[in-house]
Each structure stands twice: as C-alpha cells, then as structure tokens.
C-alpha cells in the first residue's frame, strides 16, 4: 500500500471509507463535530476523541513552576528581585504589553460574571471531571494502563481528587500565571470551540481552587504587568516585583518537581535546526533559528 503520493483528489477511490464517512471522519478530526452530533455509528469514536481533548488535570499543569524558572532565566523577567532584568532583551518599551492590556483587561470581569455559572456546570457536570478519577471501563482502563502506564484502576498514588468537587486544591500556579489563565479563558470564550472553552475553564477551576471561586479569583488576580509596565495602574515602574506578583514573587505553590536551579536538561548545543520549527506553513519559518541566544 503506498501511503505516499496519494492526492486528495484520489481519496474518494480509497476503498474505505465511503465519501460521507470520510467527511464525517474529517469533521471529527478537525474538532468540528461534537459527539452528540456524530453519526450514530461513529459516536463511540467521537467520545474517545472528545476524551482526548478533555480539560487538563492538575498533574498535567504541574510542570509550570519548572518552566517558569527556565523562562525567567532565559527571557529575563524585568523587575524580578535581585535580577538585573531584561538582560537578554532589546528593551522595546513595553508596547505590545500595553496593547494586550487594552485587549484583555476590561471585559474580563463582566465576561466571568455572565459565563461562570453555566460554564461551571457544563464543565463539571460533563465527563470531564471523570477523566482521571479512575472510573473507566475496566478493559479500556487496562488497555490504557498497558499502553501508556496510566494509573491502575483504583490505586493511584496521590490519587487526584475529583477536581470538580470544588475542593480548594492549591493552585499550581502563581498569581501571574493565574492572570494568564484568566486571559486564556477569555480567548477561548471568544474564539474557541466548546472543548477549548472547557479546557481553559478547567485550568481556571484548578487555579481558583474550586468552580465556585473562579469569578472571585479572576477578579482578584493582580495584573502581573502592573509594575513592569510603566505608568500602568501602579506608578512604580522601576520597583521590583514584590508588588506585581503580590503573594509569591518567585516560585509557585505547586513546587517544581525538580530543583529548579537551572534547566537541568542540556538542551544540547544550538540544536541544529530550531529554525525548522515552522518548517511548516509558509511564513514563520526558519526564524527561531540559532536559538540559544543567551547561552
């Protein structure tokens, strides 16, 4: 069977599936078809694909602290305590940031007020909350376990409590990250499909420590750019991050699993072709190249 060189126009001649089936499959693959909209015979498949896109659980965002440390070292967080700040950056005076603020800040509160109630119910009531609770069909769970070392049916160490129950679950993120989550939620609200919305929202629920606390949480999230963006809100542009990060200047509550000293991984030398990243669609290409600017 030659996998290669099959043009799209040849596809209909492919023995399986038939054209309508192929269209239905394409819709599923594109995320344009929710399980309940799928043809009956494809519904189980649609359910599996939906489960693949379920909102993340806490463990999946547990690496944030470690990554943030790396980001601060490399991207040079301005105004960080004890840090020269902006070391590796060609200070473009915060123009994009302030633009972003205009885009994002104002509607946030209102949006949440309107959206939180229904969204909480939708997210928590759905299958999302059951994703990691171990309540899986035994055989599928077994396959999962064998195939990807998923937690065994009922043992899980540090078994994650069902996130949907509203237990304050120690936000795994900093205040700054929380602000990002609120942003992400808003983006998803405006532009995402249902699953993307639920993903963004699940992140927030995790960060807020409970579904019923999201609105208040987002309302109280300090603007991380406050101190680093001159003239914004707090007039102390030059002053270190104590103000901006409010509670925790450096490490997030969910501690980095590794001694966040430095990027423990030798990202290797100037990875030959970071450039290729965007090997893909036209633009964007090559740049990114010769990464490892700093080091």
């Amino acid at each position, binding site marked *: 069977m030659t*996998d*290669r060189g*099959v043009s*799209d126009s*040849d*596809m209909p001649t*492919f023995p*399986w599936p038939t054209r309508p089936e*192929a269209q239905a*499959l394409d819709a599923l*693959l594109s995320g344009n078809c929710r399980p309940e909209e799928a043809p*009956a015979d494809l519904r*189980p*498949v649609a359910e599996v*694909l939906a*489960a*693949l*896109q379920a*909102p993340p659980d806490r463990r*999946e*965002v547990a*690496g944030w602290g470690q*990554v943030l440390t790396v980001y601060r070292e*490399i*991207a040079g*967080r301005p105004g960080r305590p004890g840090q020269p700040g902006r070391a590796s950056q060609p200070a473009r005076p*915060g123009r994009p*940031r302030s*633009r*972003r603020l205009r*885009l994002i800040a104002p509607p946030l509160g209102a949006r949440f007020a309107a959206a939180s109630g229904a969204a909480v119910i939708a997210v928590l009531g759905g299958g999302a909350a*059951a*994703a990691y609770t171990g309540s*899986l*069909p*035994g*055989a*599928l769970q*077994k*396959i*999962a376990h*064998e*195939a*990807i070392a*998923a937690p065994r049916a009922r043992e899980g160490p540090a078994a994650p409590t069902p996130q949907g129950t509203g237990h304050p679950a120690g936000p795994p*993120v900093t205040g700054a*990250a929380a602000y*990002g*989550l609120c942003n*992400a939620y808003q*983006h998803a609200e405006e532009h995402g499909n249902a699953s993307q919305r639920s993903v963004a929202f699940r992140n927030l629920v995790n960060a807020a420590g409970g579904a019923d606390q999201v609105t208040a949480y987002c309302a109280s999230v300090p603007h991380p750019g406050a101190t680093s963006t001159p003239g914004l809100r707090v007039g102390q542009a030059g002053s270190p991050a104590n103000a901006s990060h409010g509670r925790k200047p450096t490490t997030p509550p969910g501690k980095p699993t590794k001694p966040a000293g430095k*990027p423990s991984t030798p990202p290797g030398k100037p990875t030959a072709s970071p450039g290729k*990243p965007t*090997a*893909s669609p036209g*633009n*964007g290409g090559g*740049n*990114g190249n010769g990464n490892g600017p700093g*080091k």
Partner: protein
Amino acid sequence: MIGEDFPAVLAAAQQGDEAAFAALWHDGQPALLRYLHVLAPDAAEDIAAETWTHVVRGLARFRGTEQNWRAWLFTTARRRVIDQTRQLMRRPATSLEALPDLVLADLPGLRSPDAADLALENLGTRAAMGVIASLPPMQAEVIMLRVVAGLDTETVAQLLGRSTGAIRVAAHRGLHRLAGLLAEAGVTR
C-alpha cells in the same frame, strides 16, 4: 488555542511577560503531554520539559501564526523523542486481533445498552490515550496531532514528512480501527 489574540500574547511573552507566557504554556502543555504519552510514555514529562526549554530559548525569534507556533512546539517535541529513543515507537502496538478478546474478557456487562452508555460517559482521557496508543504508530500519531495538537492536515504532513493524502489515509484508517475496536468491545450506541 488562543485565537485572535495570539499575536499579542506571543509578543508579550517574547518581551518577558510571564502572564502571557503562562497563557501559551497552559494552552500548549496539556496537549503536548498527551501527545508525548502516546509516543514515549516513559519519558513524556521529561521530554515536555526539554521541549519548553528549547522553545523558550528560541521564543524571541519566533515569528508565525498560532498554527506555526503549535507546529514548532510539536516538531520540537517530536525531535526530542527521536533523539532520546532513536526509535519513535519502541513499544510494539498491541495487535488489533488481540484486542477484542482482551476487551471482551473484562467487560462481560458491556454489551447491554445501559452499560455501554455508562462506559462512554466514563471514558477517560487516559483510557482514550491508551486506546489510541494501541493503534499502529503512524495512525496513532496522526490522530494525536490532528485532534489533540489541533494541527491541520497540511501541517501534520509537513511535520511528519508525508503527503497530505497519506496523512488523511492514516487518520481515517486509525479512526476506522478505533471504531472497530470499540464495537468489538461492545461500546456501541
């Protein structure tokens, strides 16, 4: 996906704005981890961390759309997988023929409609990933890149170095197998 504001978020992250970077990370990390769990279950977390380190280093120079961004993220991860394992799918896929028995043996009650409904509702992400991982490697990877990474067919084709037709075929066959697998298991509607 972040959507319309992606350019602004990216620009802010490139300037050192932690909140913006947090948005990028929280948007990409879960999908990245799931993808890696299918490709390299034993090293997913480590490879994800390495991937982000690499991406952070190159972040300032990145230019492109959100689709480009995701393509870069997953391409980087994929290279790491290859580097580390030297063999993308070292774990042999469970043979399709073997699965139905395995499934049915454990699911005596699944054939009843009620049980099937229940099973579907409870089908979890990990189990779903496990089922996908049991597909032939390329089919599994294509499905993960299309569905979880949110990449379009053309981007996946470039990422994997295959034709778009090959990608479509792999995805369709994968879903077909998946359908058969679920039907065999009695997970039907």
